[in-house]
């Protein structure tokens, strides 16, 4: 049981710092995972701590809304290193992010999608979804009860020379 747990825990705790640095696009950012009980980690808790760029080490409950979002994404993508599901589905994860962080997270998602993980995100913000390869547009059709219509749009045709910013969508 110890061996199975360590096989899971080690790759994630090694990767989490690298992923948090990539999400924050800042080498001074740090993230660590530590087991309370080194001999039998599955019996006790696992601590998670992030040091946001430009800040000091402090308890996680001190983070602001946007800082928590970035910390959570780092943990999720680090766990993926150990348990590689074929795709991610993320529903409005950008709600608490300011424009700088939206750019960083969208770029990270874009880079991750290129490396063999499929990403499906729901977003209301153009700065986020204009980096996608394709859009699935949902619109309400006139009816008694809510009816959703669907339209799909391939963006790769518009992205001459990489980057997503020259596509003025919809």
């Amino acid at each position, binding site marked *: 049981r110890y061996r199975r747990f360590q096989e899971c825990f080690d790759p994630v705790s090694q990767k989490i710092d690298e992923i948090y640095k990539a999400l924050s696009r800042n080498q001074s950012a740090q993230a660590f995972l530590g087991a309370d009980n080194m001999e039998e980690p599955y019996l006790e808790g696992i601590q998670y701590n992030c040091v946001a760029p430009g800040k000091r080490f402090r308890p996680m409950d001190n983070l602001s809304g946007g800082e928590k979002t970035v910390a959570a994404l780092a943990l*999720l993508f680090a766990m993926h290193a150990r348990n590689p599901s074929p795709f991610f589905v993320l529903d409005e994860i950008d709600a*608490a992010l300011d424009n700088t962080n939206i750019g960083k997270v969208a770029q990270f998602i874009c880079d991750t999608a290129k490396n063999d993980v499929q990403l499906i*995100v*729901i*977003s209301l913000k153009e700065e986020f*979804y204009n980096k996608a390869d394709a859009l699935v547009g949902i619109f309400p059709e006139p009816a008694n009860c809510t009816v*959703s219509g669907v339209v799909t749009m391939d963006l790769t045709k518009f992205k001459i020379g990489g980057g997503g910013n020259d596509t003025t969508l919809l």
Partner: protein
Amino acid sequence: GMLHTLELDNFKSYKGHQVIGPFYQFTAIIGPNGSGKSNLMDAICFVLGERSNNLRVRKLMDLIHGAPINKPVATKCSVTMNYRDDKGEIRKYCRAVHGSTSEFRIDGKVVTPQVYNAEMEEIKIFIKAKNFLVYQGQIEQIAMKNPKERTALFEEIS
């Protein structure tokens, strides 16, 4: 592998038979408030085997189009995931609801929930761990789990 297309039959706000996709490496779902974006995520989680309380309904029957206004248009609804595996072949995973029971099919053949779940784990989908799904409004809580909850998360994927 990757998710190629989805087929929805009277699932939540999707009336009748709708094919959605193809999904690319990075796909964004967009649309106004209340149009049905999160319902599409519910469709994906439903076909992977998610329980009704995480699909924002009290019972599986409420997933049928029209149920919230007491006018369900049918007695069943279903979602099919057309999944392209690593060899490039399409596999069809389908889950349907008749009344209050679920029916699972792989490539058209009915299978038990256990077999279906085992096949899901084959393609590295652990619906209990959910470390690849983030529901609306839940992202911040993932960072704030207490240490014991975090251990449980690791146990799920080990």
